[in-house]
């Protein structure tokens, strides 16, 4: 199908690799790809960083109400992305949003979160971070609980500080889990669709258009099915290559 031109009705015309050639010269695709990579590279470190810190905090033996904290942090993940999208549409609204109320009350000017080309991507990243920190915290917490207690006890005897323990025991022991969550986040980032679709429609001026939304628009709004199929293959290629290299790099470093 990706080798055809097809409007969804009637006969498809065979066009060879024309669709693929067009993708490489398509400036809208380039914009969508750049936006998606931006969202991936900003949201992933934020999400995993917060998640690791939170997981370490929750893993302290003295923490009370652990069960309630866990449920609270996990709640954003349970909700549908559409609901998350509509809630944040009003929270981040330029004129009446609650976020801007806080920003103004500490003396700054209102931010046009969803209506400016500079902020629209960042707003998507904020929402992604809010939604995914809890989920990754739960995974990392499970990983932390598998680290043998003896390692920390040995460090205590040697007089290791909290920070030393974090960077010399926790982080290396958590490497496989961090790699796992990193790959999940990467695959997830290249599938971003609902948040921009609901909150900004990909705008303003394509500033928050994601690859999947471009694929959707091509196939189901402009009815260029052949072109959208070709985009699907390119998307799959990107995800495949990205996860392959991460696995390679991850397992390579482990060998050192």
């Amino acid at each position: 199908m990706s080798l055809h031109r097809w409007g969804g009705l009637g006969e498809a015309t065979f066009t060879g690799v024309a669709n693929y050639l067009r993708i490489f010269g398509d400036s809208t695709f380039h914009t969508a790809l750049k936006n998606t990579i931006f969202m991936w590279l900003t949201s992933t470190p934020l999400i995993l960083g917060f998640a690791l810190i939170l997981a370490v905090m929750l893993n302290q033996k003295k923490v009370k109400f652990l069960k309630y904290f866990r449920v609270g942090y996990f709640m954003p993940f349970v909700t549908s992305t559409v609901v998350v999208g509509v809630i944040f549409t009003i929270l981040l609204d330029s004129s009446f949003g609650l976020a801007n109320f806080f920003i103004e009350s500490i003396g700054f000017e209102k931010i046009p979160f969803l209506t400016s080309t500079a902020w629209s991507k960042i707003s998507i990243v904020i929402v992604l971070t809010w939604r995914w920190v809890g989920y990754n915290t739960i995974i990392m917490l499970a990983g932390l609980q598998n680290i043998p207690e003896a390692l920390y006890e040995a460090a205590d005897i040697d007089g290791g500080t909290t920070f030393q323990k974090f960077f010399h025991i926790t982080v290396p022991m958590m490497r496989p889990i961090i790699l796992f969550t990193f790959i999940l986040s990467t695959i997830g980032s290249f599938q971003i669709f609902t948040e921009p679709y609901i909150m900004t429609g990909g705008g303003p001026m394509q500033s928050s258009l994601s690859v999947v939304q471009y694929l959707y628009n091509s196939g189901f709004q402009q009815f260029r099915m052949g072109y959208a199929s070709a985009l699907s293959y390119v998307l799959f290629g990107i995800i495949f290559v990205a996860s392959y290299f991460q696995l390679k790099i991850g397992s390579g470093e482990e060998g050192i």
Partner: protein
Amino acid sequence: MFKKENISTYVFYILLITGVLISLLPFVWMITSSFKSLAEISEYPPSLIPNKVMWNNYVDVFDTVPYGRNLFNSFFVAIMYTFVGVLISATGGYALSKYRDAPGRKLFFAVILSTMMIPMQVLAIPLYIMMARIGWINSYPALILPFAAQGFGLFMLKQYIDGIPDDLIEAARIDGCGEFRIFFQIIFPVIKPAVAALGTIYFMNNYNLFFWPLIVTNKSIMYTVPVAIAQLQGQQFGIPLHHIMAAATLSTVPLIIIFLYFQKYIISGITMGALKG
């Protein structure tokens, strides 16, 4: 006077509680907004408690869109999907785990694992064309079946079934048990916890699914809840924010109740995948 120890404990809890508040505030805002009038939602500065509680929002949303039907669709599709999906994962997992002599078993397993890499968005266009060809656009089978076989679920249950000793199955076979009876009376009871975990994850994923239902339905009576809400949001003029918030609350509250009830299973299901994968 505070001791140093105490202060750091306070800071610790203040940080944790702030985090939880950030996680939960949007939900509180959704619920209070759902009781506001349209004018009050867009007032500045925003109010937490509605001036006048508008119960009407919850009535009106059923008049503007067929929301009762949408809620039914979401529940019906998610339940059927969970049922079919778990059955496929359990039977498939059993076959892959215990029929070791079957030719091509390794190849099948490799192919199934590699499908986990392919996101739904990549498959959407070819699947849409298939659905259109067999006339399944706007139908329940199209909402339920295409993604019912999940490599992730098969893998998870196979791992679990691997732990069941073969002797148990052999003994049953010698006693003249049929394969279906072995599966339902011996395997199934043992893997129940994993099935519960997988089932809740399937249910939530499907209940929240947006991309596929958006593509495969175009009649408002066949929409699932996320698509119905998105269509309200997508209106050109006068977006009915008060109805959207009521609809969002109605769809989220049952899910939160299910989550609180099954949270043990959900969390174990998610971490199981991470630690073994």
